[in-house]
């Protein structure tokens, strides 16, 4: 009975829809943060954060620096823009992780799971450690 329910769940699971939701929400959050940042720069009339190039040895360091700024007594006004850019860059990565879980847990397609895992290794190195 449990096996039948699982098969039904697998048959009804629409991975494409989930990938679409991840990409769309990542984009919406990113655009929302960028708009908040632009308005914040416009209100405070600084625009300093827009002039400086983004910098970080990797995306993780870039995000950590943003969070350090967020909790500091005087965070820079373009912080939402930086967070928006970070979320934009992380969205395809999250999409790959979702695909990995789908191939491993739902479809149980080991070939596809390994292929996706191998794609994630160099990307993880570049984003988090590179």
């Amino acid at each position, binding site marked *: 009975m449990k096996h039948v329910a699982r098969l039904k769940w697998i048959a009804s699971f629409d991975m494409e829809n989930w990938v679409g939701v991840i990409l769309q929400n990542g984009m919406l959050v*990113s655009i929302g943060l960028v708009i908040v940042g632009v308005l914040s720069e416009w209100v405070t009339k600084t625009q300093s954060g827009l002039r400086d190039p*983004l910098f970080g040895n990797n995306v993780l360091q870039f995000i950590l620096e943003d969070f350090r700024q967020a909790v500091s007594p005087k965070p820079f006004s373009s912080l939402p823009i930086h967070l928006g850019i970070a979320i934009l860059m992380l969205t395809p990565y999250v999409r790959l992780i979702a*695909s990995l879980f789908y191939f491993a847990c739902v479809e149980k397609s080991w070939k*596809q799971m390994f292929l996706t895992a191998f794609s994630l290794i160099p990307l993880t190195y570049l984003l988090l450690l590179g």
Partner: protein
Amino acid sequence: MSEGLLFFVSIVAGLIGALSGMGGGVILIPVLTACGVDIKRAIPLSVISMIVISNSAASGYVRRHLPNLKVSAFLELFAILGSVAGASIAVVANRRPLFFLSGGILLSSCMILWKQRREMWKVTPDQDAFSHQLGFEGSYYDYGEKKTIAYRGHHAYLGGPLIFGAGVLSGLLGMGGSALTVLIQDMVMGLPPKVSLTTSNLIIGVMALAGASVYLEAGLIEPRLLVPVILGAPVGALIGSKLLVGFTNRFARLVFLSVLMLLGLEMILHGIRGIQ
């Protein structure tokens, strides 16, 4: 360059990028460089625009079951490795002959596809065992032709290494790799043009991400120029993704051909100008 102008150029880049599966570099790079932005700062913008367009356009495509996730999972591995390899050797490589070479490849592919423009796409009659094992088959409802189209991809053993080459080119030159990604799926792997274009839209997202990390480390990403791209490109990409769904495979290929020709000429021009 004014942010307002860049916003409108980004809308056009998003539209063309979503329709051609190539990202927005073909529009953004020539406009930015013509407005006096250094090519070293224009290329990172083009790379990030690829992520923006990929996220925006692919979210609509996957819900309509157009891209093939199994094909993308296989090709992404080669694209990422190629992109990292290309970006790593970009510092020491002489890029001028590569602009001529890739421009030549794109223009000659353009001529081959132009000769085949009246031929209808046909399903691959025999699929090799490797492609079958990887599950390179699928179907989608074609709103342009008003019928379900079933397809089978083949020559996965050739497609993977060739996509590695496309990734190297993308990492090295910051452009051209996405066009080759579409061409390889269409001409080598026998996928329908709409499946090739939309699967490429997914692949270029991760391929660009690998390159963007390198540019972030180099401090070449300017938020002042990036903000109009992030706000403008999704508008164009959403319009483009809605349009492509209604196109027939033949028309989708014609749109791709036009952008391909533009990109091929642009790369030859970069070679002539000696852009490093």
